[in-house]
């Protein structure tokens, strides 16, 4: 049986039942519903937090709501990233929590100029997507020098120049220790990695510095869970991250996918505690497997990253800083981690582009957030004054909603009516997206408006209107 959320009643019975509303909900039952849907956290309940006598209850609630995959926090000087905290194997069962963090590597043998350049690219990386800023999350410092002093110097240099959480990477405990020694609070770095050969020393460091610890056992799942049991149960470290190894090629890719899937399956379906920890993946390993040209290596690094992001990795370490490899990764990550119960949609209705009046054109689009944001930004860029009629297609894009009959004449008719469009414009012309050309007749029949098929790409809106929105053309159209 997979992990099951507690019932709202179960939670409600433990809550203080003050119905005080301090959490923002009308009563404790409503708060309980929010809690089991993971739309609120216990910390939002002041009576529960403030009354020290309720500590045991708080702890009980906390454990009832605890995810089968532990949540772990990494802290940089100013940025925090949380990984893990997963409840389900498939996103449709609830939703995935804490998007896969992406870390980019820095090598302690790089010169400072290069390091600064890499930090700058990582920190400035940003892509605007559906009103969200997609970014990178952490820096992994590895030691090709294997010299503790050199490593310490570079760790210090990175910490001085970056706000992001740091992952200290070496199999040599002395190197890791040197790095730990130069990081001061609020830094809480992740250590990578304890292996079958160095686990005692690494565990000791993790304990002493209270830092989360990665356990790596490439190619050997028995050893991975043995190490996990030893370190978590016998030594008592709870903040650990697991790495079963990242391989490509025949035997390698299948092993990797199997290992990540099995671990997550066992954590969520069998609630096996030795694997109930976040997973780290290192597509950067591709750089050692492939000796082909750099573009091909980056191509495979992106493939491994995307594959393991889709199959349960909570944190990735990558080497390539190229925009073309990172862009699809951050976009897919955003999609994969959206709440499948709520389509990414904007409210339907009539919007203004620029300052439209009674003679301005009416553009039709759908209420899929991405469609809407692209169309409105393109229209704004082309500096037109127009009305944008956003149809409720249940959050689907134009082509999909045409195919799925969500953008129909009936829907457009309703939108015209509810937005009072007939009072707002004098003409009776709608401009339909090119990808919805097939609906032209249907919409004309249902609305009685003249439908003109516009461009398939919203970037062409400006040019299109220049050609068509002219008095003589309009006369022709309405004749």
């Amino acid at each position, binding site marked *: 049986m997979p992990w099951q959320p507690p019932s709202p009643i179960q939670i409600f019975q433990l809550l203080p039942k003050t119905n005080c509303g301090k959490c923002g909900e009308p009563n404790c039952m409503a708060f309980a519903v929010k809690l089991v849907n993971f739309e609120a956290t216990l910390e939002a309940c002041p009576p529960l937090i403030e009354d020290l006598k309720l500590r045991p209850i708080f702890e009980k609630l906390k454990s009832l709501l605890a995810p089968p995959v532990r949540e772990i926090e990494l802290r940089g000087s100013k940025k925090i990233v949380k990984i893990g905290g997963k409840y389900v194997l498939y996103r449709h069962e609830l939703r995935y929590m804490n998007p896969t963090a992406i870390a980019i590597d820095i090598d302690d043998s790089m010169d400072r100029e290069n390091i600064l350049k890499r930090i700058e690219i990582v920190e400035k990386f940003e892509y605007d997507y559906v009103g969200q800023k997609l970014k990178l999350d952490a820096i992994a410092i590895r030691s090709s020098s294997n010299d503790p002093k050199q490593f310490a110097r570079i760790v210090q240099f990175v910490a001085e120049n970056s706000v992001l959480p740091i992952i200290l990477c070496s199999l040599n405990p002395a190197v890791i220790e040197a790095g730990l020694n130069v990081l001061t609070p609020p830094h809480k770095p992740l250590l990578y990695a304890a292996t079958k050969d160095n*686990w005692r020393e690494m565990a000791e460091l993790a304990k002493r510095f209270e830092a989360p610890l990665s356990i790596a056992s490439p190619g050997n799942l028995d050893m991975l869970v043995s190490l996990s049991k030893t370190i978590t149960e016998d030594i008592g470290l709870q903040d650990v991250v697991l790495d079963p190894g990242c391989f490509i090629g025949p035997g390698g890719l299948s092993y990797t996918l199997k290992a990540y899937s099995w671990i997550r399956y066992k954590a969520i379906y069998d609630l096996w505690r030795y694997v109930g920890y976040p997973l780290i993946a290192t597509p950067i390993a591709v750089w050692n497997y492939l000796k082909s040209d750099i573009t091909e290596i980056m191509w495979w690094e992106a493939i491994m990253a995307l594959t393991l992001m*889709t199959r349960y990795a909570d944190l990735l370490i990558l080497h390539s800083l190229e925009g073309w490899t990172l862009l699809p990764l951050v976009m897919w990550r955003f999609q994969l981690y959206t709440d499948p119960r709520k389509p990414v949609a904007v409210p339907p209705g009539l919007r203004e582009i620029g300052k439209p009046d009674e003679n301005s054109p009416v553009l039709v689009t759908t209420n899929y957030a991405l469609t809407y944001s692209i169309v409105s930004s393109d229209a704004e860029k082309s500096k037109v004054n127009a009305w944008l009629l956003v149809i409720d297609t249940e959050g689907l894009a134009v082509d999909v909603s045409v195919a799925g009959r969500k953008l129909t004449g009936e829907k457009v008719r309703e939108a015209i009516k509810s937005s009072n469009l007939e009072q707002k414009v004098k003409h009776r012309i709608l401009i339909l997206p090119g990808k919805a050309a097939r609906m032209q007749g249907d919409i004309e029949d249902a609305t009685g408006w003249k439908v003109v098929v516009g461009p398939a790409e919203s970037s062409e809106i400006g040019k299109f209107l220049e050609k068509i929105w002219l008095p003589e053309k309009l006369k022709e159209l309405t004749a």
Partner: protein
Amino acid sequence: MSMEKKDEKQELEARKQANIYSLLAKLTEALAEGIVELYNVEIEADELTIILPETGAIAPQIPIPIMVSPPKQTVEAKPEAAVATAVAKTVEVVAKKVVELAKVAFEEPRPKYSGRVVEVKLGATRSEGGTREKTIVIGGHTTPPYLYLIGYGSGHTPAFGGDTFDMKIGLPRAVRQVFGDALDNPIEWASLWINKFGAEAIDIHLVSTDPTIRDAPPKEAVKIVDMLLQSVKVPIVVGGSGNPEKDVEVFRSIIEAYPSEGLVINSLNLDMKLEAICRHIAKSNAIVINFSPMDLDKAEQINRKVYEWIPRNRIMLDLNIGGIGYGTEYGFTVMERARLSALIGNELLAHPFNVGAANAWGAREAWITMDPYWGPKEIRGPLWETLTCIICLLAGADYFMILHPLTIKVLREMREYLFSEPKISDPDKALQWLSSKLPIV
């Protein structure tokens, strides 16, 4: 109970001891190196004698908070170091008593599934009444994709077809660059796909039949399919224009002309008069793709209707996909849900999936010119299509209609890797990146 308590106590005791020894070892080791560091030290013991070696090695640079381990290749240990080694060994012994590496075996997941995805055969050989030299069988899955529950192949491997169009349409530059003049002629285009780029089937999209485009008559479409059947020997997937009325006419003409080639009809949907076309398909050995964009209820609905005429093992399902950034997650999740539902016994969804990978190019990031940091579109585009396909692959997709040769090349490699026995020959290689000097990119 008391035994356990006693053990616990002993263990606690041993742990304390180990801590002290460990500290001692560190101290001695550090002294040997001339560096001392102590923080958060708290020693609790009844009797403790620390014998510090008498040397002048306590160097003045104490505050440097860096601990250097003794070089491993020391020929002969200095006396101080020898002491350190001895203590360290004791610590190891004690520590071993306290925390030994547990021996735990990884327990295999054992979910149970009762359903099975039907096997569908694309194309027909001479012995089956057709002229194909190669046919493709897909489906047959009994476990979720790539979970490796029963060996490394649950059902058949996915297959990859190359897209061609019967008239010039707007294509991304990355695609135009590869096919050049062949784009003017679907037959040449298809030959390039087969002979040079490893396509395993050909998808012909009969765009010219669209009433709003050229409204080409069905007999022209038949002619193109005829030429294709003669020039390539792989299965052919025949795509309509998407106009529900016209597609019925076009598909009917093609099926009547080639009833025994195992043609794949792409696609049927609920907007069509299904009876009008299915009656004819029933008399052939053609396969149909039932198209139900991101909607499982409708997928069941259309399958239920089509079952009246066409046997289950001649039906594929297309739940649609959007390129990365453009609704990919809907297609991904709806495929995952359909496959899981099929595996627990829902026969209505137990069909192989078709994926129109060319949709990936609908993402503007796949083809627009962007700021140089995001790289040339000629590489962004094929990568976009490749990654979109991999997302579908992981959700269990079986047949892919692909626009760019690089996508097919990479997917064929992926398939080889994914369907090989999971086995690692050189595990330590996975950690080499830690200490490698990599090209700075």
